[in-house]
């Protein structure tokens, strides 16, 4: 992961959370609510503000491939939007915050892709939807009002949180006191055991003042994270989330 200038030591409590699916083995009952809850389905939840966080959906990526003459099937985007709507309903979400790269590319922003997003928007009509712009969104061209986005911003500061797409950029002086929540990296982690089992998957990554979300979209690649001291990692899947910090660090020491 890139170096982050953030110097904050804000004690933000992260837990992987209930809501169906699996939780980390050996996880104790949570006495009171954490600041960030990591959810099955590659999203996170802020209980205090009932905010759902998701990053890197890359809607229209399959469409961009097809426009370039590469035959990739339709379906991943619709399914991702359905999952997102289900998460919004399951957690009674007041605000959905997309941490960038909602759309993949200009060539993929077909009327159909926009129509699908608008349909999703009407399914979550009671929730406000805010987009923190990502590098892909910025090249996707002007986003039409028909999408129903309540706001498009570059960064969002809401102490103790600083929301941004790329974790290493856009840190204003005030943001250095805050806990950054970002996307962009599409983190994946590989865990291995002495008997030869090895499993690589998307993950959440946390450092003392930073949380990076896994890519929410299913048609997205990954970037392998090399674990360093004090880094915490959780494998993030549709059907669960499990902390692998000890596993990763134990394997690293071997």
């Amino acid at each position, binding site marked *: 992961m890139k170096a982050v200038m953030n110097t904050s030591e804000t004690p933000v409590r992260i837990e992987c959370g209930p809501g169906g699916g699996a939780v980390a*083995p050996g996880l104790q009952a949570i006495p009171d609510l954490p600041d960030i809850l990591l959810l099955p389905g590659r999203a996170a939840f802020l209980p205090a503000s009932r905010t759902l966080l998701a990053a890197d959906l890359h809607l229209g990526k399959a469409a961009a491939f097809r426009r370039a003459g590469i035959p*990739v099937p339709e379906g*991943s985007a619709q399914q991702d939007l359905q999952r997102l709507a289900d998460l919004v309903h399951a957690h009674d979400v007041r605000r959905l915050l997309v941490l960038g790269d909602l759309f993949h590319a200009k060539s993929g922003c077909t009327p159909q892709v926009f129509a699908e997003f608008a349909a999703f928007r009407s399914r979550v009509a009671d929730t406000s939807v805010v987009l923190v712009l990502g590098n892909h969104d910025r090249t996707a061209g002007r986003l039409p009002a028909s999408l129903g986005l309540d706001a498009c911003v570059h960064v969002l500061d809401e102490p103790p949180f600083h929301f941004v797409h790329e974790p290493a950029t856009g840190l204003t002086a005030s943001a250095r006191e805050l806990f950054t929540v970002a996307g962009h990296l599409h983190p994946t982690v590989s865990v291995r055991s002495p*008997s*030869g*089992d090895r499993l690589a998957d998307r993950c959440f990554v946390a450092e003392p003042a930073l949380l990076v979300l896994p890519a929410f979209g299913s048609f997205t*690649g990954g970037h392998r994270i090399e674990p360093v001291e004090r880094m915490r990692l959780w494998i993030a899947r549709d059907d669960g989330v499990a902390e692998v910090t000890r596993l990763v660090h134990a394997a690293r020491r071997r």
Partner: protein
Amino acid sequence: MPLSTLLSAAVLDLVQSAAAHAGRSAAGAARGLLPEVKAVLPLLQTQSRWSHLPDGDGLLIERAQSRDGHHAFLFPFAGRLVHEGLAALVAWRIAQRQPGTFTMAATDWGFELSGREPFFTQEREWRQVLSPANLLEDLLACLNGTEMARRHFREIARVAGLVAGGRRTNRQTQASAGLIFDVLSEHDAGNMLLSQARREVLEQHFEYGRLRAAVESIAARDIRVVDTPRLSPLAFPIWAEQVQSRLTTQGWLERITAMARELEQAAGDMSS
């Protein structure tokens, strides 16, 4: 270049000719042998002391335990490709009885399975997982448990123009073959390129015809299961193979939980 059926029979003959000499004194043993056989004679003697020398009449299976887990080595002498297929088949059949995760490695003379639990001791159990019955169905099913088709798909995806083969492309239409394989499997399961990947693995990697001949020949042979105190000279090079594949019938969380337990145990062993 895989070991052919003829060649493997010839290698077994040589091992047997060495075995005939191995009982004699060191000086007598060396007489009348090919220089190559003479050179490996000490290893064959160790092999014969710790375990057995393989021959054409029986199938030798060695079981061993290391700090990394349990191992089984099978020596059918049927060539690397056939062994890769056999290893996946046997691992899959074992994992059907009880969910498990195995790593596999193969050479021209044999293959290894390793996992967290001890392997069978009984000849009868081995015979069941090496049986020619339901061979094609089981092979097709075990293809899904391994990453073989997914890995093989890279070549197909390149020819089909789904991924770039070295040429510079638009960044926004870049994806790995593995990702496209997953998306096709999820949303277009009948896609012909997927069937092609499975068929090619079956034909090229598993060499179905020779694999069938190998299991039929094993069915007619004795099976001898030996526990070795450490890895035998025939087993060690297979264990040291860098190229390993993996087969699992466990869920991801089960695997993570088992890995955590293993590492805790390893840490406990070290500190105690």
